[in-house]
């Protein structure tokens, strides 16, 4: 049984009088442990599909079933809990909280749970920072870091709850090629360790890291 099952997903946006069809009747299954790249032109519906997968944007039609849970049938609170437990997000522009330090940003998802003591949170965050090679900068403010370092903080934050799925929206879009390779190597290692990764990218060079490459055009799957 697949981990992710998208059934006839359609997403429409209304801008004034006009209705934009961002995702058009997509059905897709993704197995656990897969590394999928979503490619396509701007406006092809890649990011929209990713936010729907992440439980942040309800499809206009269709169902998204993850680990046998029809996620948009959950209440808003349960859906938030689902996101925290199942999904880790990494964005192109890092999306870190500027007034928090590196380690505080990493621990951010834990603030919404009561499952960890402060000591446990710090231990967990330090372990993950070590994985992304930021163990020496836990107390730096975000703006003191380079782009590559910021993205590694974002990855560490996405991993703190040990989610089943990592969703990355052009994670190397703001980085130089050398730093991008470093980030992709981290993703590759995470995938080898069993994480399911779905990554939106424009860079066809990164297809080599993926197990499955999906192309979208005008909101439809091409392959």
């Amino acid at each position: 049984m697949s981990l992710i099952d998208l059934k006839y997903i359609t997403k429409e946006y209304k801008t004034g009088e006009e209705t934009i069809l961002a995702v058009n009747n997509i059905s897709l299954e993704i197995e656990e442990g897969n590394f999928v790249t979503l490619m396509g032109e701007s406006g092809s519906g890649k990011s929209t599909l990713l936010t729907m997968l992440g439980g942040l944007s309800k499809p206009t039609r269709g169902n998204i079933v993850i680990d046998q849970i029809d996620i948009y049938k959950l209440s808003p609170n349960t859906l938030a809990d689902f996101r925290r437990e199942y999904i880790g997000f990494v964005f192109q522009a890092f999306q870190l909280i500027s007034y928090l330090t590196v380690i505080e940003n990493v621990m951010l998802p834990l603030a919404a749970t009561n499952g960890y003591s402060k000591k446990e949170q710090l231990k967990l965050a330090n372990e993950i920072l070590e994985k992304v090679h930021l163990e020496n900068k836990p107390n730096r403010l975000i703006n003191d870091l380079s782009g590559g370092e910021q993205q590694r903080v974002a990855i560490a934050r996405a991993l703190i709850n040990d989610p089943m799925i990592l969703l990355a929206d052009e994670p190397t879009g703001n980085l130089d090629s050398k730093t991008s390779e470093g980030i992709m190597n981290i993703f590759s290692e995470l995938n080898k360790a069993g994480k399911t990764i779905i990554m939106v990218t424009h860079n066809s060079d990164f297809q080599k890291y993926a197990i499955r490459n999906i192309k979208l055009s005008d909101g439809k799957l091409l392959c």
Partner: protein
Amino acid sequence: MKLYNISIQSIRRRKSRTAFLVIGLLIAVASFVTLYIVSDNVNKSVAENLDEFGANMLVTPKNDGLNLNYGGISITGLTIENGSLKQSDISIIKSIKNKDNLSIIAPKLFNRVTIKSENVSAEKNVIAAGVNFQDEIRLKKWWKVSGKYPQESNEALIGSEVAKQLNVILNQKINLNDKEFIAVGILDETGSQDDGLIFTDLKTAQSLFNKRDKLSLIEIAARCYDCPIDEIVRQTSAKLPGAKVTAIKQSIESKMTAIHSFEHFSFGISAVILVISLLIVFTNVNASVNERTKEIGIFMAVGFRRWHIIKIILLEVLIASFVAGLLGFFIGVGSAKIITPMLSMNANIKIDFSYTLLLMSAGMAVLAGLLASVFPALKAARLDPTAAFRSL
């Protein structure tokens, strides 16, 4: 990492935004505290001055006798012939529980006298009033006198009507019950019973009428701002069972109306300030929520519930409001200390540190802050994640 850590770090590290929020509320709280203290003290000052402007209580003998309309009140128990109040009753009145509320005690002895003078063809009967001029002048601030107030035992003050009818002129010698007095002052017309009286020193009158230590009535000006006049009447009645103690309601009501008008004015201004402060906080928090769309999107992406987002925003406002409340209180007290002496008629007014007002200020700031932030916080929690993510 807890939710409150996020709020605290946001306050600590976004200093200018926090300062803007704190200053907005601080100004409102400081204005409120200043206005509250100033109006309270000015009210007291006005009340004290009004309380000394005429009597608001009358003590008369209980037994019946001649009637006298005094101060608009018909005093049915006044016995001019046999004053049944005693000089010592003044000390008794001064011993009531609310003695500190008694501002002026003005005893009087009335008696019919026969007046003879050069300008009067025949003997005439008039009513003489023995008074303590010092107390009487304080009580009747509206009195205007041609000449001077009596200072010696043989000096008298003539009511305007008496002077007119008997052709008494200034510094004229007159005989009251065959004792010679000099009319050192003539009272300008007051429109009251005082126009028909001749005033002499109380002790002289008691001696002249052979009524040593006797009094006809006692007028009292009581400070009734922070004490109900009825309570003072009750206490005085209990101490003087043989006397009838009456509150001059008309006088009290007009004074209280004046004081309450000022209070209403102050409350009106305070209400306006409160509304303005609510708008400042609302605008500030609302703008902050709009600015933080991206941040709220991140919170949603990492699995925060709506309530978590509301809590973060409200906690920030709560901390900032509490600090604004405390600072506003101290600034307000400081401002009041400068402003009050300028507005108050009493320069000696002391402004005490009030823990109640401190708690009220902090409470009011927190309440206003939270009240104004509820809508923006709810708006933040209901933010469509897609909208937030369009900016990501």
